[in-house]
């Protein structure tokens, strides 16, 4: 009886062993197949990575260190840098002052025609900046349908204020998008409870919603700043490309390449590149859109 039982369990063990071996063989085949597919897929990845690296090397190796330092120190580069910084920061302030309050309203209220407004607000994100600039030019140009806007346009067009107009047009919807998403992500329960605890709506915004949405808003602000710094198309239409007047960093690259002066162009390009890189790191740290990579 016990012998029989032992035989039986021995037989079962053998069967199990065989099954396990088969499974392992199958798993091995599976792994093998997956590996060869991955090798094929690695080719396009390598192409992309190499292309980016080539761009970086191409820019970096263009000038010797001495030439680079000279170009960085040139009056034109410094002017462009200063102008880009001041205009982009002013634009950013405008974008935040308009975008964040609008986002708070949109995140909390269901208004009729919401879908239409939403689509309209998304349009500047996909609209080519050149087209946006063209539109701005017509709205405040000399033939503007609204005469007061034409008078305003006389002040703004082809001036440094025009740069701010173009940049803030682009930056505002970016801030608004990010802030709306951040406010919507805050559990409305917090807002409700804060109300019952005696916090007025303004204090709820200040003490609850802003701190909780702060990270997302900040990431949006940094992204908007990066876009404002690199803004070219709309600026070209509204403010023109006048050397040492409306010459932002992108404009300086355009003007100097057009006249064959690679030094200043490359210096400005490297400044933009390194700024963009720093901003990217900041966005990552804030947990904004750029950090949403597959972690699984």
């Amino acid at each position: 009886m016990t012998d029989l039982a032992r035989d039986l369990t021995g037989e079962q063990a053998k069967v199990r062993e065989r099954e396990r071996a088969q499974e392992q063989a199958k798993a091995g085949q599976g792994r093998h197949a997956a590996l060869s597919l991955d090798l094929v897929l690695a080719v396009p990845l390598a192409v992309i990575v190499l292309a980016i690296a080539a761009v970086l090397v191409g820019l970096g190796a263009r000038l010797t260190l001495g030439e680079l330092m000279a170009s960085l120190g040139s009056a034109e580069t410094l002017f462009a840098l200063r102008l880009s910084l001041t205009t982009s920061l002013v634009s950013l302030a405008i974008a935040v002052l308009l975008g964040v309050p609008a986002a708070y309203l949109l995140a909390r209220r269901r208004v009729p025609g919401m879908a239409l407004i939403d689509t309209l607000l998304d349009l500047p994100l996909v609209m080519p900046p050149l087209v946006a600039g063209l539109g701005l030019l017509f709205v405040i140009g000399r033939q503007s349908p609204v005469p007061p806007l034409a008078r305003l346009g006389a002040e703004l067009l082809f001036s440094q204020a025009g740069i701010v107009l173009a940049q803030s047009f682009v930056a505002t919807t970016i801030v608004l998008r990010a802030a709306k998403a951040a406010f919507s992500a805050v559990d409305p329960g917090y807002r409700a409870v804060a109300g019952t605890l005696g916090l007025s709506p303004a204090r709820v915004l200040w003490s609850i919603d802003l701190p909780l949405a702060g990270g997302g808003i900040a990431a949006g602000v940094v992204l908007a700043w990066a876009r404002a710094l690199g803004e070219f198309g709309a600026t070209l239409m509204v403010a023109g490309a006048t050397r040492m007047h409306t010459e932002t960093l992108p404009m300086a690259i355009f003007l100097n390449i057009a006249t064959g002066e690679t030094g200043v162009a490359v210096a400005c390009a490297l400044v933009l590149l390194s700024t963009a890189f720093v901003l990217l790191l900041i966005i990552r740290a804030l947990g904004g859109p750029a950090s949403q990579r597959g972690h699984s």
Partner: protein
Amino acid sequence: MTACGGRSGTGRLSCLRLGGIGAGILKDVELEVAPGGLLAIIGPSGAGKSTLLKVIAGLMPHRGFIECGGPGFERLPPYLRNIGYVPQDLCLFPHKTVAGNLRLALGRSRFAKADWPGRIMACLDMLRIAHLADRLPGRISGGERQRAALARALVGEPSLMLLDEPFSSLDPETAERLRGELRTIHDRLGLTTLMVTHNMDEAFGLADRVLRMEDGRLRPAERRLCGTFRRESISRPEAPDAVRDRSTCQEQTTMITLSDAELDALVAQDVPMGDLTTDILGIGAEPARMTFTARDETVLCGSEEAARMIELADGRVLSFAASGTRVAPGTVFLEAEGSAASLHRTWKVAMTLVEYASGIATRAGRLVAAARSANPDIGVACTRKNFPGTKAISVKAVMAGGASIHRLGLSETVLVFPNHTAFLSAPLEAWVARAKAQAAEKKLMVEADEVEEAEALARAGVDVLQLDKMPVAAVAEVVARVKRLGLSTVVTATGGINEENAAAYAATGCALLVTSSCYFGRPADVKATILPKE
């Protein structure tokens, strides 16, 4: 109807009155909570309980009026209502510390800013979480978060507390402790409180008044005692709530002691081949509803077995009170639904079982009460003189009544009677010593019926003296002598002890009364009603 007195913000004792409230699922809800009262609303999820709280908190548009410390409450924005609202998911602000959460709630209170830290700490202290003041809500346990949310709602001295399922996310032990504390806090602060819960025991344990919400309407709630167990949990009901009297409500008495086979056999004795009356009347398929009602004050026993019996016959038990529950006359303690055939099949056996078992439990309960009125520490044990064949349910009944079991049988205890000693020729000291050595881990109990004999046995070293049919004075004498001798012999009294003389025997100072009297007497009186289900 009294007018709502007091002013919101100063008088804590404001009453709450609602009328004609309609919002979402709510239909014409009316209610009133007295100043300082605690009203609980029970009901299934989705019935509108949380919606009602949101309406009162000002978080939902609605029809109807709300008065709280004056009319026009419904027109105030939430932040002017001076309420303490604890939602089901608590909503502690994750970016603020526990103390920071409380600080936010003080902004609009009448307390001067200089008093805030003291006020916050006092409130945290009251809920025993002062040591967590500087922690973020994400870094404390569920029970601590619950306390923090209660503290935050209380700190501004609201005139009305609204609690939404305050203990639903906690383990039963923590929930029970917090329930007790909430009741204490409520009694101390006299806060008008409205609580919603799906836990009936919680509602009846905490609240002054309980209403039931179903499909957005409020109606009076019936108390269903101890258990509202669903079908699948009948075989292992939850422990009864601590809020009720523990002395007659012990956990072990709520277990089923009879197996399904035994219950089937009991039913089969009564209905071996079908229920002829129900069959010839042709009413078997009608949907029916049955209730068991106690006619007198009763300590229940056997309700689990009755419920299981009904279920084995395909009835559906909606609720029943656990064994050990003391119910008042007129209390419905079991409700079931099913076809008329299934209920008619079992009701009589189920009811009779409950009647006999509850009779024993009720008498045991009265005996225990009588004995403890004279000596709160005395034990009361029932003998094994139960009707033969009914030991399991008899033991359960004795324990449901709050008494204990003297001897379960012969195999495990040593009790020497004169019928044993008649065979012994060795001197007393010798057989006592030998018996103690033979069963070293048992207590040696010996029965005596005279004072001198008892003293001799005590001197010989027996562990327990069982004094049989001795008068009260003689028992007292034995207790006194044992004490005078400095012996640790346990003195117990037995024979003829009943509800009338239990107190007198208990007063003698003996350690235990042993009695069979609870087995003899009228069964408890239960009324069973079977009606067509409307």
